């Protein structure tokens, strides 16, 4: 797929790098020459350009990309202008980064397909992880539901998923299990290997210390933490 990343700050650079690593064609543009030079080796094409300049943006053929990522949220005015221009120039899909709620609302009104709020999302993840040592990962899926990686409660240990009655009794869906399986290395030292079971069968057993990948309502996750 082809992607256009406008704005090569920390976020834009990370998105461009991840897309390029996944084998996609990425064109990255920024006004700042230093930023462009930094991503030059990673992406298909990196250009120094003022994306608020309609004529310059037009030369890129915005409509040919599968998605345009507007990652210039530091300057709200230019972020909005670029988004508007990208829309007018026929962008198939626009993803825009925002750092304020107000900007997010305006971007939505402009028809942005996906507004991302990395600072807020990261803040929530860090807060969750810090306040619960049993939570290893936290992703907000909606205002009411989240996906978490949580150390299996002791009362689940030694039971199969079916026997835990996780869905009926606790309102949580176990969609994966990550475990560290002990083994002995060639020097007779006990070590372990990582094992991840995605979409485990109801008969899969849960061991002590397993990490459960769970999707649930936030209140049910809170209850699970206390088990």
């Amino acid at each position, binding site marked *: 797929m082809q992607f256009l990343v406008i704005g090569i700050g920390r976020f834009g650079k990370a998105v461009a790098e991840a897309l390029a690593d996944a084998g996609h064609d990425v064109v990255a543009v920024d006004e700042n020459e230093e930023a462009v030079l930094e991503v030059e080796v990673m992406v298909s094409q990196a250009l120094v350009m003022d994306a608020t300049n309609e004529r310059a943006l037009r030369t890129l053929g915005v409509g040919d990309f599968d998605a345009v990522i507007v990652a210039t949220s530091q300057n709200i005015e230019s972020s909005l202008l670029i988004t508007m221009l990208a829309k007018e120039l026929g962008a198939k899909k626009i993803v825009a980064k925002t750092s304020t709620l107000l900007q997010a609302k305006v971007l939505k009104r402009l028809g942005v397909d996906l507004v991302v709020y990395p600072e807020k999302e990261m803040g929530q993840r860090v807060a969750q992880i810090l306040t619960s040592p049993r939570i290893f990962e936290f992703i907000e899926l909606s205002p009411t539901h989240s996906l978490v990686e949580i150390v299996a409660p002791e009362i689940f240990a030694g039971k199969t998923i079916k026997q835990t009655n996780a869905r009926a009794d606790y309102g949580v869906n176990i969609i994966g299990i990550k475990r560290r399986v*002990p083994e*002995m290395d060639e020097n007779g030292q*006990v070590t*372990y290997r990582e094992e991840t079971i995605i979409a485990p069968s109801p008969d899969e057993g849960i061991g*002590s*210390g*397993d990490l459960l990948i769970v999707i649930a309502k936030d209140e049910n996750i809170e209850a699970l933490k206390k088990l």
Partner: protein
Amino acid sequence: MGTEDLLEEAKFELLAGRYDNAEKFLKRILKKEPKNIDALFNLGVLYEITHQDSRALECFNQVLEISPEHREAREHAENLAEL
């Protein structure tokens, strides 16, 4: 039971996934010999396997305080510090 036997029992229980038993054997060793590197290291591995990462890191750091050259403990500690 001597230290060697306790350590063997602990490793056996650890490999069998009976972590509570393994922890008891290792703590028995550490009660007698608080600076026993093998017991501290295996306790670190046990905590790591059961996702008690801060406890695991404490154990590996203790191993490194006693024996800074312990390569495996350093690898485990670095791995945990990265997470």
